[in-house]
């Protein structure tokens, strides 16, 4: 299992990388952490003629706290974000979700931009981005443009960016004082891809009333998806065991997958209900303990 030959470029600036992408576009793959791309190359499922290695673009490695969001450079390693005290303090759902991405040695090299560009249906970072309603900035020959999570999540393994564009920054909104959150997922072994995962952010009011709910699922549809019927069911309700259960039962409406050898559609649907219930409960407990 060895990769097929390729031409290798190692730009040191975004400008240089974008020039290379403009020149090689469809024949090229961008190499960030390589934790998904290199396995595919080793299997020769991917045989790019050109590899553009962005690991030397130091300007893409940063975490910056803004007034209402955290800006993270695309080459920032997942483990750096996971262990950042600021991220844990301002956007704990991101740290918690990252702890589920592969294993530590994977996160030590895997990048924030890489997971989003790869577009795995079970990707935790994309699910959190969708839940929070953040944004992604890409650079291309026409300059920079901003994508919503929905625009980015165009399809399975098909991020909504063109072949001459490069993800440069991801913006995650900071959780407000009246918001609580949860992230839980089920995988067959620690670090495996999620059979089903749930991210939830709830804006809470007096008496445990949920004023706004954002809930997204991963691993159960071609891309991470919002569970809008769960959100609508939770909104305006006083959260308790029965209102949470009623909402969780609607999670199956967001499931869009076939039976496959890891899990049947029926089992994944069941997991969604269970994990939505547990995630909302966790969020509510955290709110209560505040």
């Amino acid at each position, binding site marked *: *299992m*060895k*990769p*097929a*030959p*390729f*031409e*290798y470029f*190692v730009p040191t600036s975004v400008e240089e990388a974008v020039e290379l992408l403009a020149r090689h576009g469809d024949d090229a793959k961008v190499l960030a952490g*390589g*934790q998904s791309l*290199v*396995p595919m190359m*080793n*299997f020769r499922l991917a045989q790019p003629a050109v*590899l553009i*290695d962005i*690991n030397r673009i130091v300007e893409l490695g940063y975490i910056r706290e803004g007034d209402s969001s955290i800006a993270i450079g695309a080459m920032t390693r997942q*483990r750096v974000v996971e262990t950042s005290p600021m991220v844990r303090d301002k956007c704990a759902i991101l740290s918690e979700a990252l702890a589920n991405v*592969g*294993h*530590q*040695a*994977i996160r*030590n*090299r895997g990048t924030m931009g890489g997971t989003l560009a790869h577009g795995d249906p079970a990707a935790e970072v994309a699910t959190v981005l969708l839940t929070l309603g953040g944004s992604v900035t890409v650079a291309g020959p026409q300059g920079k443009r901003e994508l919503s999570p929905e625009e980015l999540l165009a399809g399975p393994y098909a991020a909504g960016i063109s072949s001459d564009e490069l993800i440069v920054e991801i913006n995650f909104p900071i959780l407000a004082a009246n918001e609580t959150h949860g992230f839980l997922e089920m995988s067959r*072994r*620690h*670090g495996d891809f999620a059979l089903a995962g749930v991210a939830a952010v709830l804006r809470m009011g007096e008496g445990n009333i949920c004023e706004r709910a954002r809930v997204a699922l991963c691993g159960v549809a071609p891309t991470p998806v919002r569970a809008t019927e769960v959100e609508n069911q939770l909104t305006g309700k006083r959260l308790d065991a029965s209102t949470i259960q009623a909402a969780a039962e609607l999670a199956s409406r967001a499931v869009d997958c076939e039976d496959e050898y890891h899990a049947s559609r029926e089992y994944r649907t069941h997991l969604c209900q269970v994990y939505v219930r547990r995630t909302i409960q966790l969020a509510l407990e955290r709110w209560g303990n505040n």
Partner: protein
Amino acid sequence: MRPVGRKITVTVNGEQYVREVEPRLLLADFLRHGLQLFGTHVGCEHGVCGACTILFDGVAQRSCLIFAIQADGAEILTVESLAQSGKLNLLQKAFHEHHGLQCGFCTPGMLMTALELLRENPSPSDQEVRAGISGVLCRCTGYKQIVDSINAAALAIAGAEAAE
């Protein structure tokens, strides 16, 4: 067609090497066949088994998912860096004493992973050890002896540091 190699300078276990590498050469293969450092094992070649885990600029990474050309200027530590003058270090000694290896195939990955784990968390709980080594697969011992070995190493390292 044999693409022309490119020159890289890489420090492995404190020694500097200058070599020509083809871009598609994996770091694991470079270490084994280029530098004859066979301690790093290659299992699955797609980042699942963890046997090829090394420290790349100080952090544990899969050497089968990095191209050797990317290691230009990097400092790498492999399992060969652990023993000094033929003497096992405390972590290796703990694996030896607690039967932390059977066939030995996963051991280089386990040791390099445990090295990082104990550096970040010098007295981990059993649960933390299990989570820490979850990225390295062992098909012999059933992990219990490996967890025991890492716990014993944590105590031995703490003891040695207290004695200093």
